[in-house]
């Protein structure tokens, strides 16, 4: 199979979708792992309101209402922060309350949630599985302050796999790229979707900050639909490899 050709020909829609996907997962990962700042919130708004993003999201019905809501909430929060910078402390406290301490409402680790009530303690078997999954794809945790099965890390992995696939496509390695993407979808199905929905629902219910409610709502929706869309795309593209290569 040939690589998608560079130059004046418009990129193949799959490339565009992969870029969107990588960007979205990077963004979600970031806001799950880090407290927001006015700058990162502005960037989030810019991203979500970019016509190229919103059109795809809208036409694919990829949670466009949730995305729009998150954009609106984030924009509003950015405005509030510009007039009341001290408000940021409340947002950070909410992040801490939800994910860290004193008694986190929505512990962001797969080990805690997995299995519909029959899960494992932190650093137990599902953590081990995730770690091995990453290793098989040549990834390892580079930040010992979190564990591999943090939702933010898991989604970062999906983003990284999409980015790798993009690089492969650029090099003409279409089969390898499709395998990468497929593997990331398999990971979503085998791990993320097995627990994150429940955890994110808890965030939606527990969060006092609209930002986290909106983030959780969009994340839950996007992960689910992306998994389905991407899997279908990969399956169909495998059949239509020439189209991708042309």
């Amino acid at each position, binding site marked *: 199979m040939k690589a998608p050709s560079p130059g004046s020909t418009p*990129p193949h829609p799959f490339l565009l979708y992969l*870029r969107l996907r990588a960007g979205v997962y990077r963004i979600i990962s970031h806001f799950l792992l880090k407290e927001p700042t006015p700058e990162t919130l502005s960037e989030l708004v810019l991203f979500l309101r970019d016509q190229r993003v919103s*059109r*795809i999201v809208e036409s694919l019905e990829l949670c466009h209402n949730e995305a729009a809501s998150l954009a609106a909430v984030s924009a509003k929060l950015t405005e509030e922060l510009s007039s009341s910078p001290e408000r940021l402390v409340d947002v950070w406290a909410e992040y801490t309350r939800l994910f860290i301490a004193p*008694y986190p409402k929505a512990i962001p680790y797969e*080990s*805690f949630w997995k299995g519909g009530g029959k899960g494992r*303690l932190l*650093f137990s078997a599902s953590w081990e599985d995730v770690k091995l999954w990453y*290793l098989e794809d040549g990834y390892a945790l580079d930040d010992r302050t979190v564990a591999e099965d943090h939702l933010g890390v898991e989604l970062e992995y999906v983003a990284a796999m999409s980015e790798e696939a993009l690089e492969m496509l650029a090099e003409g390695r279409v089969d390898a790229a499709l395998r990468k993407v497929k593997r990331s979808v398999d990971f979503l199905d085998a791990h993320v979707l097995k627990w994150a929905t429940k955890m994110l629902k808890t965030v939606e219910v527990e969060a006092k900050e609209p930002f986290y409610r909106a983030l959780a709502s969009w994340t839950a929706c996007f992960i689910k639909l992306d998994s389905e869309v991407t899997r279908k795309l990969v399956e169909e593209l495998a059949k239509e490899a020439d189209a991708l290569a042309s």
Partner: protein
Amino acid sequence: MYALTRREFLKVLAAVSAAAGVAGSMPVAAEKILKTRTLRKLTPEEKLELERRVRKSEVEVRYTACVMCAAECSLEVWVKDGKVVRIYGNKHVHYNLGAGGSACAKGVSSLNLVYSPYRLKYPLKRVGERGEGKFIRISWEQAIDEIAKKLVEIKKKYGPESVVVDAGDVPDNRDPYWRFGFAFGTPNCLEHGCICDTPRRHGPKLIVGGKRWEPDIMRPVPVRGEDGKLHWYNKHDIKLIIYVGWNPFTATRISWETMGTIRAKLENNAKIVVVDPALSNTAAKADEWIPIRPGTEPDLFAAMLRYILEHNDPNDPERNYIDYTVFNEKYVEGLNEFIEAFKSWWDKVDPVTGHKYFTLEWAEARTGIPKEKIEWLAHTFGKTKPAALVWGMQAPGHHYNGYVASILGVVLNIITGNFDRKGGVIDTELVKSSKGGPATGKQFNKRKVKRAINGKEVEAEQEWLNYKYSDWPAAWDDILGDLPRLIMEGVEIHYGPFRGHKYPIKAYIVRASNPLVTAGPPHKWIEAFTAKEPDGSYKLELFVYLDTVFLETGLYADYVLPEASYLERMSVSDIYPVHPVIYLRDAVMEPLWDSKKPFDIVMMLARKVYEYEMKEFGRSDIRPEDFWEKYSSEEDFVNEMLSVAPGRPNVGRPLPYPNLPEGYKLVGTPESLEEGRVTIDHDKKTVYGEPVTVEYLRKHYGAAIWPMSWERYKVWDATKGDWVPGGILKTKTKKFELHFHRYEQYNKLVEESGRTPTPWRELGWDKLPTTFYWFETVWNPYTNPKYAKYRDEYPFQLIWARTHHGMTGTQLCEWTAQAPAEGLWMPLNRRFRMKQVRIRATGEPVVEDKEVKEGRWCVGTVQISTVDAEKLGIKTGDYVALINPLGRSVVAVAYVTPTIRPGVVRMGLGSGGRFSPGLGGCYFTRLYTPLTNELTDYKFSPVMGQPCYADMIVKIVKISEEDIPKYQPKYVLREYKVPGVEA
């Protein structure tokens, strides 16, 4: 399901293409967001190496020491790819239960703590009000920077003595924190010992310079044989053990004691007597259970001593109680003075009972024990040799007048010749291995400092800036319980060179401790933590909490810092054997999350304080050469802690090292001393072998073990051809001191100041008595006339006991939380849901969502006798309120039992009302379980200043569920919601 049809798929592609038409490419997420990276792409070589490591699946066996209770057993830990997968007892050491070594359920369940989802993971900064629980995550750099800056501000404004450093519950990592505190310039560095059992330890400290006494039942022990070689001595010699308010089977200080008690009984037919208001687990296995009235242990001991003195007959083998080979003026300082002082009470009449003091009738009236039983006990103890009389932290240790029992207990053991006799009683403090040494930084406390007092400049050693927080000049273990008052009112020094100096307490740094629950009334702590100045700022300007778990105290802190768990940090154990033994607490895995080792925390803080002090003062009390230039790692630090081990004299019979001078202090590994690889400093009378190091301990299964011997209170003087007193004794005269020379230094201070400490004045003392003394405990209407008026309205004496959980933080571990204990901790819960942890057969910890049905989960109860419960119409499982005369109350579920003395109710230490949600089931049962300290008076034992945990009386009211908010403290009723759980 988003099942795409072929047509839909084409639509998708079309849509994406259409979107792409806008600009031809997709935007990337902004640079700042994209920079977040937690994963790293491995090089092919790295990937191969990692895969190889995973495939190998090798288990590394490491040795460390437990922290789940104060026994600190040696553990064998299996580590696989950086994760602890198994915990066993260390079968290579004899100290663990049984000769083969084992770990108890508590030890194994520590994985529950290490891998808890509620563990402290990141440094936090408070952004709400204290107690609100509103925090933000910050970096270590920010936390340390802000704390250091504030410390230096406080130092500049109020002096370094305004900072209190509380190194907490586990003595293992006390030393780095103390080192920092002392070097910073505050003498106010303490640890949990001052709220533990100071009255219990008082007699040993006064009379022999020691602490905790235990029966000689630790077996096997290495003993020098006639062949000159060391052999494991595994025979039990003891014939009688009397445990008074001491419950090793459950409360656990000394794990070998459980096994030793049973073995002594089975193998040597030793008689076991337990004197305790409740039928403890130890009592249940004893030959005799004597249910004493709480707080009357001194009365029992005084009656026993009087009986022995009055009925001793050296010529009658049945009444040959006193061992004159020991109880004579050669070995005992102030013998006659003490006996005369004791006898001076014999003709006085007790206003409460109408009997003469210390008679059997008098003791019967006060202790509630039949006089025949007291006589039997005194006689049996006097004639049975070897024997041990041991008193515990639940009795003398928790009473205002525990000193009296402690002193009399020591005398009873010495007079009968049982001290350090084979099969007798051992002062474990005097024989355990030394540790710490210069690493503790106590030398900094000797630095000269100046203070302006009433217009004059006074110079003296730094330690005098503590002395001792106003009212406790003799509190040699320091003061914690009275800290709330000191925060509220400030310190005014009355004793020593700095008398007249005043300063506020402005910073409190506390690690591995939960004083809000354990150190006296919680409402007092909450009041102190939240008290504000008129300008709205907190009186206590800086409050730092460090721990592995988030307990109640942490909710009020300004900074909450995650300390590495015991499996992730290095230090040495603090165990109580009958001969020198030391364990390495090794770091067997890397710290999880963003937690740090105590050593690293202290070094960060020291560096930053140094920087701020240099900026502020142009000099710093923290010197690089004392910290980061001195120690390159925690191993360096621990090596210095070990450098003084074992630090005990070569004394006793059989002599531990016949090849070395008798009486000389021993320092070095057992092998180097054994094989004579030593240097001898005759001036210092010290033998130096090869130092004990971390490396040595790792090569020796984590332990160093030196020989056992007996009669270590004397030394053979070859020049005199006679025994001379000394050896392990740490007294001024090197004898047993029944004249309390130790008190004299404090009396001198008080005399110089012209001000009698308030607690002494309340006893009618202008100075501490230097020989036998007697005073009554507080809140006891049966012995203290002052409280007789409460007898009818508050008919129950309230006492505490320890459950197997040991520490208030380890109740987080549900695996042990579900094991019932003695009616104190029973399956009497109401229904709730929670995540419950269990271990699979594979060894994996598993957490399951579980509904806990009524009556299935152990909760802290109040134990009430069947007789009393019938009168009050109370059944097991009923809600009751306990109300004290101070107007304080708690709610509990009643456990009705014949196994407690009528008129006495008992609760577990920190076993209820736990409003820290990270404690799982404990939190969800808090509404109807008692936070025991809420009923403790804010009153302290008069010499050492410890809270009087077991001196309280209550009335009991049966209540309905609706009444709970009326009686349970408000701070207990607060709500925090935990995921996966509903109350």
